[in-house]
């Protein structure tokens, strides 16, 4: 059975007709061709498909596409403002927090979600916050450094 859905991704409205069995990940990658969201396992274990769904971080492989009907989503493609990379993106570059880069889009969205909930996290909170996103390259050190710096700068700016 196929369903018509409407979804807003990164402020753009899309209409699509998808089978009931399609996951949100398939909707994003195969139908909307937003391939910045990655599939590392397809069963909610690696976190590489994390996206923001109505303000909440989810694994796109664990949500059905039809559940996204009427929803507002943010993916890595919406992280930069035009050519202007976000603070997190720039900090990830600066700290070399991306090696192979496959976990990076989801890691950045996860970090963004963390900083929205906890604007000035401790290191423990950063580590806890990204614990659902596997990275096999970096040892996580550079990722934590990158997130910490964005949080610190935001704090400094708020003074």
């Amino acid at each position, binding site marked *: 059975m196929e369903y018509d859905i409407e979804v807003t991704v990164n402020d753009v409205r899309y209409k699509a007709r998808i089978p009931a069995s399609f996951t949100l990940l398939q909707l994003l990658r195969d139908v909307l*061709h937003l391939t910045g969201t990655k599939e590392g396992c397809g069963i909610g274990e690696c976190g590489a498909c994390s996206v923001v769904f109505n303000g909440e971080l989810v694994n796109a492989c664990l949500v059905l596409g039809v559940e996204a009907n009427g929803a507002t989503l943010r993916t890595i493609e919406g992280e930069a403002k035009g050519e202007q990379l976000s603070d997190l993106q720039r900090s990830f570059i600066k700290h070399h927090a991306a090696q192979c880069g496959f976990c990076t889009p989801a890691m950045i969205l996860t970090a963004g979600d963390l900083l929205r909930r906890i604007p000035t996290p401790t290191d423990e909170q950063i580590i806890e916050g990204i614990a659902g996103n596997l990275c096999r390259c970096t040892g996580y050190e550079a990722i934590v450094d990158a997130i910490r710096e964005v949080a610190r700068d935001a704090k400094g700016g708020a003074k």
Partner: protein
Amino acid sequence: MQSNVRSQGWIGDTPARSDGPAKVAGTARYIADIAFPNAIDASVVRSHVPRGRILGIDFDPNFDWSDVTIITAKDVPCNEIAEIECDQPALADDQVRHVYEPIVLLACEDKTKLQRAVQRVHVRIEQLPALLNVDDSLACNPLVLGKDNVMCSYRVVLGDAKAEIERAEVVVRGMYEVGHQEQMYIEPQGCVAYWDDAGLHVVGSMQCPYYVEKALAHALRLERSRIDVTQSVTGGAFGGKEEYPSVVAVHVALLSKKAGRPVRMIYERQEDVQATTKRHPARVTVEAGCDRDGTLRGIAVDILMDAGAYVTMTPVVLSRGVLHACGAYRWPTALVQSKAVITNTPPNGAFRGFGAPQTIFAVERHMDRMAEAIGMEPMAFRQKNLLGIGATMPTGQVLNGSVGVQECVQRALEKSDYLRKKSTLGKANSPAGATKVRGVGASVFLHGAGFTGSGEDRLKGAVELDLLKDGHVRVRSSSTDMGQGTETVFRQIAAQAAGVPFENVSVATPSTAHVPDSGPTVASRTVMIVGSIVESAAKELGERVRNEQQQHGGSFAEASNRLLEREGTVVVHRRYAHPAGVKFDDATYTGTAYPAYAWACDIAEVEVDLDTFEIDVVGFWSAVDVGRAIHPVLCRGQLDGGALQSIGWALCEEVQWKDGHILNPRMTTYIVPTALDAPPFMTDLVEEPYTFGPGGAKGIGELPMDGGAPALAAAIEHATGIAFNRIPMTPERLFDAWNESQRERR
């Protein structure tokens, strides 16, 4: 005139990595992200038994096969995957030799139907007795290979070690075991193939495009000029994409030829964990003798590795294990014997470290046992016996430079405050009834960079550098970037040697139609070996432009443009040759095993919870002699990431088997470290330059995999009194060992 060239040079600087912006923006195109018009998806029907005779393949007559492309063994022009040997078929024909072995390939436009089609193929197999582990194999129960099931064997002899051990004042014997390890790159294996008038094109996630080209040429009986293999952005590899992509590539090429359209195969995670290569498990027996003052007398090591069902890279993995088995110490006599035996389990293959982590775990644990036997502090015992300049290694190689191991040990001891912690923490200093105990442990190790023995001489890896308009330079090489930063460091090396700004150097996408064969991207050889010819080629290219400048004036850019106009193309080609005096005899296993070694000392501090038996790594110090860090931040990234893989292997990563099947082929059952499991890394770079490396650099990609496990074992021993000789050291195993030790005390 030199205003664009930084006075301190590009080597040692930390420019942003070339692929950073695309990776953080999500626009980097991995194989599953690239649109191939008209492409269809593919899947594999695999064996469900470890060993058996294929009686027949039945395709359900009630299923509509009209739009499904089917390939079986009889469709393969030459049914062999060409690697070191050609023993592995592209598809099992009359026999299966391990669970998950590919038997039938299917491709279909409708992905859902493809999944159903896989279920509708029934392979009739008469099951035969199988070798499920090395003990079955050693017992020849059954015999499946040669006269003893042994796939390969190497031996290193220095003096009469047995006699010298017998004469030593103290003799220590031990046996050490390590298990399989899954690479668990986050991007699964994947390739796409398509055909056109030029021939076959394969694009995919891989380390070694020329390995893939060789396998395609062999299996499809194609001329190499009719094949183009291109690496797509690769989401991690760690050895797991060294030889295995050859299998995936051959599969999609066969399907695409038959289907007449592009075919894409992206592995499911479970399939990837089950079917692809893993680190070789090993059992290492060590007997060594020393005198009471700590003087080493001799060592005898016996290595047994589980090769799995096919050869893949086993001979070279075993060889590297052999050559690292005596560790970083001066042994006046040594005898290393080894063999790898066949089993009916999925073939084991390349994984960062490539045999060395297995034997270094053994020798480092053994050094701890010897220190205990003579009542010396383990690090004092090691320091007394460290290799240094002028020392002879077991193959007779005399170290003639770039040995920073003593400095590494000193720095790591200081920064970690090891000696104070050693005397104040630990089981002996914990109050009775304490629920949390701390301990520290250390390891010292080395890793040879480049191919083993005469490998680099046979390989003669090549690069080409092009002069482009306005004085820009392009590096063409088959060395791939799978995350480690190859592209960025090659740009730095070429910029410095050619005397041009970093921004003016580009690196071509590795594609066999456009880049020369630089050799595979493995063996910690990219920076040190391939980088050295990038350096010398760039130097020559820069000199040619500057000669033109001297003769006819103008800027570097203007002189470049004149040269290009006059000569059409300006290309410098370089082939690698070992420095004079680097010779290895494969027959006797003597000579220079590696042109240079990177050295390191790891120190781990752990806290063990005696209620839950969780092991928390609270700090990890590493001092590493890298020769010269081309890019210190990328270099640290390799060291920290590699160290965490070794911590995972030591504490939680374990492949569980039953009847040749993997019981835990998932990321929640095969546990790799999360951010919560990662300790703070205090990584210190020591720079003892290697004369023939670019800027003095040595290869360090694999080194950090070698030292974590033995350092953690020593730290856990300090904290709990329990000496593990086997990894992983899981809470369950610690719980059992602790209970046993408590019983013994009563």
